[in-house]
């Protein structure tokens, strides 16, 4: 059983190559391969669900020599998110991508991206983290430019340059860590760091990682690429980028490195919260000014990741829980929103809110799901977004950050405003003349959308059934990073 851990990475990776090989000879095989890979991945994630934390050494070299994969509550959380979301997105993508040429390339890049994310989430080796991070990033760069329109290329290039810089910075930080500890195995490194490291160096490494992962997770002021990149990709990829990439590559890596390897320090917490607060406010204000549906959503991603960052940076039990919870929720409702925007674009051919309207009558399923997602991102009970925001706010008050708490509440109100606008202009009101003929999206797209919509409701209400097992266990690991040394090393 534990033997199967590498398949999280191996299967999507292999499928990517197989797909490229076969699709040259067999037309239309790509969707099936991808679906197979994603379903298998979900099945695997469910098999591993609740499994005790353990490490798996590739090729049976005992760590710290070999490369290890580690399954622990934190990886479990992310692995679950990735597999579930990517399943929904894949379902959506199958009909949606029909309109593009070179589909096989798309699916291979898509699988590479998934493999990269799984690798980042599971690896127990610092350099390996970087490698998988780069795999996922490069795939996403390429996917952003997939439509080869002017704007998409521009966005992709900016994303590429900024992302490249951040990767370089991360690599530098890893190199410094290696120089300081003489190992790349995370657990080994953590142990070595416990014994002490030059104060200045440690803080420099912190700064580098903050910039690197901060850019990957689009914290202000490293956010500028996101509002260009995320809308430019095809809708399924936008969903993946906003729903998963910024989390797996940004927040998760940050948590893993800061809390479990380096050991968090107060000033870094403060900085994280500051960045998070800035992102929340600036992101939401920019979002309010948007009329392009996807661009609006992208800006909201910035502000929502701000919530997560604030929660995590608070580093109180409640705060971290709220952060992780919001991470999960945002993954769900933001990918859902992007998928809905894709569905609207698919049927109406535009994503300008001013040219839409009354869609809920013509597309009840997609429209309804969109409405649910909008409500849950705006933190309206009983949808999932409400709970995580509530927890974060309470955590802030509990820690006596009254001002930041008020800001958080205010931002969630601004989010509400902005999504009222979205619903007003897209779902309700009059159906424009030229849209009279439109129909509900294809069944697979609807399926993908509805899965996520159901989760939006379920995640909030059913917390007692999954919360302790998935979220609180991860929280506990973050709070006692010492555990990691027990199970991640012989």
């Amino acid at each position, binding site marked *: 059983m534990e033997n199967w851990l590498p398949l999280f990475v191996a299967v999507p990776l292999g499928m990517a190559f197989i797909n490229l090989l076969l699709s040259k000879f067999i037309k239309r095989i790509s969707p099936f391969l991808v679906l197979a890979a994603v379903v298998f991945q979900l099945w695997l994630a469910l098999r591993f669900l609740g499994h005790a934390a353990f490490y798996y050494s590739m*090729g*049976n070299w005992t760590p710290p020599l070999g490369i290890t994969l580690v399954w622990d509550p934190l990886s479990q959380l992310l692995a679950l998110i990735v597999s579930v979301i990517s399943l929904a997105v894949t379902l959506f993508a199958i009909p949606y991508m029909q309109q593009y040429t070179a589909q096989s390339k798309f699916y291979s890049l898509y699988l590479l991206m998934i493999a990269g994310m799984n690798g980042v989430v599971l690896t127990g080796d610092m350099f390996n983290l970087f490698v998988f991070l780069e795999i996922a990033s490069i795939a996403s760069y390429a996917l952003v430019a997939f439509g080869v329109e002017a704007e998409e290329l521009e966005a992709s290039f900016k994303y590429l340059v900024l992302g490249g810089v951040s990767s370089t910075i991360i690599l530098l930080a890893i190199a410094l860590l290696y120089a300081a500890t003489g190992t790349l195995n995370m657990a080994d490194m953590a142990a070595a760091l416990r014994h002490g490291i030059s104060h200045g160096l440690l803080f420099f490494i912190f700064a580098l990682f903050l910039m690197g992962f901060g850019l990957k997770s689009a914290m202000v002021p490293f956010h500028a690429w996101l509002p260009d990149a995320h809308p430019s990709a095809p809708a399924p990829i936008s969903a993946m980028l906003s729903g998963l990439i910024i989390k797996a590559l940004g927040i998760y890596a940050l948590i893993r490195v800061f809390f479990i390897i380096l050991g968090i320090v107060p000033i870094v917490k403060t900085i994280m919260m500051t960045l998070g607060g800035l992102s929340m406010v600036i992101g939401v204000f920019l979002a309010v000014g948007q009329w392009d549906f996807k661009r609006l959503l992208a800006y909201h991603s910035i502000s929502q990741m701000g919530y997560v960052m604030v929660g995590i940076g608070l580093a109180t039990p409640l705060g971290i829980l709220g952060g992780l919870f919001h991470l999960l929720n945002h993954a769900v409702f933001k990918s859902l929103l992007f998928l809905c925007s894709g569905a609207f674009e698919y049927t109406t051919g535009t994503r300008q809110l001013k040219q839409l309207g009354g869609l809920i009558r013509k597309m009840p399923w997609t429209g309804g799901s969109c409405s649910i997602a909008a409500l849950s991102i705006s933190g309206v009970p009983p949808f999932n977004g409400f709970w995580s925001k509530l927890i974060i706010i309470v955590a802030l008050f509990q820690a006596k950050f009254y001002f930041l708490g008020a800001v958080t509440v205010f931002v969630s109100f601004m989010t509400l405003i902005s999504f009222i606008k979205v619903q007003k202009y897209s779902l309700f009101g009059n159906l424009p003349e030229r849209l009279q003929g439109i129909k509900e999206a294809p069944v697979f797209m609807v399926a993908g959308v509805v899965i996520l919509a159901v989760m939006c409701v379920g995640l909030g209400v059913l917390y007692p059934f999954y919360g302790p097992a998935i979220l609180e266990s991860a929280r506990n690991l973050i709070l006692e990073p010492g555990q990691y040394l027990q199970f991640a090393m012989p």
Partner: protein
Amino acid sequence: MQGMSFIVKTVTRLLIGVIFLFGIYITFYGHLTPGGGFAGGIMLACGFILLTLAFGKETSLGKLSDFWASMLDNLGAFTFWLVALLGYTGGYFFINFIEKKNPFGLLSSGTILINNIAIGVKVFASVFAVFLALTIFGRFVSGLAESEEED
């Protein structure tokens, strides 16, 4: 005139075989000497680059069309993956499941040889592709330079 002067062409004719052999040699013996798949792949790619320089694109693409280049690319990656997966026959992912023959021989390293070949193929294919892309890019740049000179 397609390519470069006949002197360069002739010399290339004479060298190409050696370069080819050398690249493969480096690839095969990567587990005994430095280099391995990556260096070897680059060597091979350089051979094709030399062909392209001396004879022009048609010749080198005649040897290896871009379609097959991409196929090789994927094939290399796929092989590597397959070897890693076959590790399960030895009980562990990525384990070296082929028993090692006489030390310091060609087959002394089990799967590493295969991995080297896979990497070599992949690197060769992708470097060659990158080179072609770069030459097109170069044409663009020079074209731009001319246009700038004009105005």
